[in-house]
């Protein structure tokens, strides 16, 4: 999909890109036309209304079609995962997404943007999951997914933004998305600068940023200078198992998020949400609180991006509070070499959801919640196979810590390894 997209972008560029006689290094911005301040702010959006630090150069290819500025973004991994222990699994699979956003100026101070994000994961992740120790959330074949990660929907996002600059430092942001990302949690991991070299999802995903594929999202945001306040309404149920359709439902959940941008290299947020019956097989609702800080600073080889994030969920059915902590970073040692890592601590109460009898037994003996640690270190080397597609080979290893009570089921020291090829759309180097 990425290669097809790349061919399309190249053709569009060949037809549309102006300034063919411009000096090569001076044409980096030639893909943009007719923009205003509101357009610039729309260009920085990552998922829904969430953002990475403004100073992070988002990998994208930009073209214009008439007065529409169009951005193409894409990231894909072909991965072979191997995990040890009785509940570990092995699989060859691909996580991938492609996104196109098109922006048009509206008057002197407004701008409109439409976005579509597609993923072929329903086809490239067979069996409705890939193995990921201690990962939980959503369902496959009518059973809760445990030790596995679900594929994303074919339509990961379909949304419309209108942004209006009310004054020099004040903007009003309106967002409607049949499929989109409400104002809850940090920037979701597929879009997050610090997660760009990690193919697998964090095991804190359903504690922090899982609402990035939600249905019928409406968001209003108001930014003044370095502070932005947002409120969202959305359909709170997680996506169903048919990943090829757009699900719809009433706007029964809400969230609010406060952003703070101290400099262009920082983006910090706190958010709160009330989700109506998010998990299909679990009774009750959820409240979720998250706080995060993302930092991205330019370096000679690229951008060093890091995230610290906390998420807490409260289940109204079980009255349990569960915390999750995440630290994540990607460091470009040189332009072609990346070191990456992710450290997580997550309280899990659904690791035995597939076996209610065992779950009850453990609950009586040891309690309902188990704190899991996941410690991932990885390395990616760019090999430059294709023009405009940043291709790299990478590997990462994950070690886990777990309470003694569940070691009989996972083994004493479960480990995971992931060997992958990464494809990312990026303008060809001049």
């Amino acid at each position, binding site marked *: 999909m990425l290669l097809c997209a790349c061919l399309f972008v190249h053709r569009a560029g060949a037809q549309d890109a102006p*300034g063919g006689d*411009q*000096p090569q*290094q*001076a*044409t*980096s*911005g*030639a893909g*943009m*036309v*007719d*923009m*205003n*301040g509101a*357009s*610039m702010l729309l*260009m*920085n959006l990552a998922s829904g209304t969430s953002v990475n630090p*403004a*100073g*992070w*150069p*988002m990998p994208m290819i930009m073209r214009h079609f008439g007065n529409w500025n169009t951005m193409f973004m894409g990231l894909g991994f072909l991965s072979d995962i191997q995990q040890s222990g009785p509940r570990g699994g092995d699989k060859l699979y691909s996580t991938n997404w492609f996104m196109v956003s098109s922006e048009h*100026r509206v008057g*002197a101070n407004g701008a409109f943007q439409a976005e579509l994000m597609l993923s072929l994961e329903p086809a490239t992740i067979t069996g409705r999951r890939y193995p990921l120790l201690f990962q939980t959330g959503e369902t496959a074949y009518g059973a809760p997914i445990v030790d596995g990660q679900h594929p994303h929907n074919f339509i990961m996002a379909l949304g419309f933004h209108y942004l209006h600059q009310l004054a020099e430092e004040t903007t009003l942001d309106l967002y409607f998305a049949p499929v989109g990302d409400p104002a809850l949690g940090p920037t979701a991991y597929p879009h997050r600068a610090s997660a760009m070299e990690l193919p697998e999802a964090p095991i804190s995903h359903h504690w922090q940023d899982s609402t990035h594929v939600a249905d019928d999202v409406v968001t209003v945001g108001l930014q003044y200078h370095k502070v932005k306040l947002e409120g969202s309404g959305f359909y709170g149920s997680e996506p169903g198992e048919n990943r090829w359709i757009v699900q719809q439902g009433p706007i029964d959940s809400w969230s609010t998020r406060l952003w703070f941008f101290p400099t*262009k290299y920082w983006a910090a947020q706190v958010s709160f949400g009330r989700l109506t019956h998010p998990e299909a097989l679990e009774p009750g609702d959820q409240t979720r609180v998250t706080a995060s800080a993302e930092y991205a600073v*330019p370096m*000679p080889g690229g951008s060093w991006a890091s995230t610290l994030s906390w998420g807490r969920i409260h289940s109204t059915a079980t009255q349990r509070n569960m915390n999750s902590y995440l630290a994540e970073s990607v460091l470009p040692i040189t332009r072609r070499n990346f070191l990456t890592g992710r450290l997580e601590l997550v309280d899990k109460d659904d690791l035995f959801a597939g076996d209610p009898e065992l779950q009850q037994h453990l609950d009586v003996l040891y309690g309902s919640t188990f704190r899991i640690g996941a410690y991932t270190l990885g390395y990616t080397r760019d090999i430059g196979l294709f023009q405009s597609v940043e291709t790299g080979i990478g590997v990462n290893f994950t070690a886990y810590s777990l309470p003694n009570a569940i070691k009989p089921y996972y083994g004493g020291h479960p480990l995971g390894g992931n060997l992958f090829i990464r494809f990312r759309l990026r303008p060809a180097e001049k």
Partner: protein
Amino acid sequence: MKMLYLTFALAAALSAAKTPETFTGVITDTHCGAKHDMKGRSDADCVKLCAKGSAQYALFDGQRVLKLSDQKTPAKFAAQKVKVVGIYDEKTETIKVGSIEPVAQ
């Protein structure tokens, strides 16, 4: 003998060290490069807005867009013709800025 080694070492170090050069051009940003096209805004506003985002202040010398190590001083000279004195690092395509001065147009 020691003196000879020292002289050779000093000569080698001096030949390896780059001397500052003078670059003349217009302060731009790494996103727009040579051409700015922001409706209803001056080129200077465009440069400043872009530099608020992922773009960095740079110098367009008529041929190349050269990044600048100093990201504060250029804000005063956005879209203006300037003279930059500094050392150019080809590897990072960045001028390590010594000084930036406006050039009378």
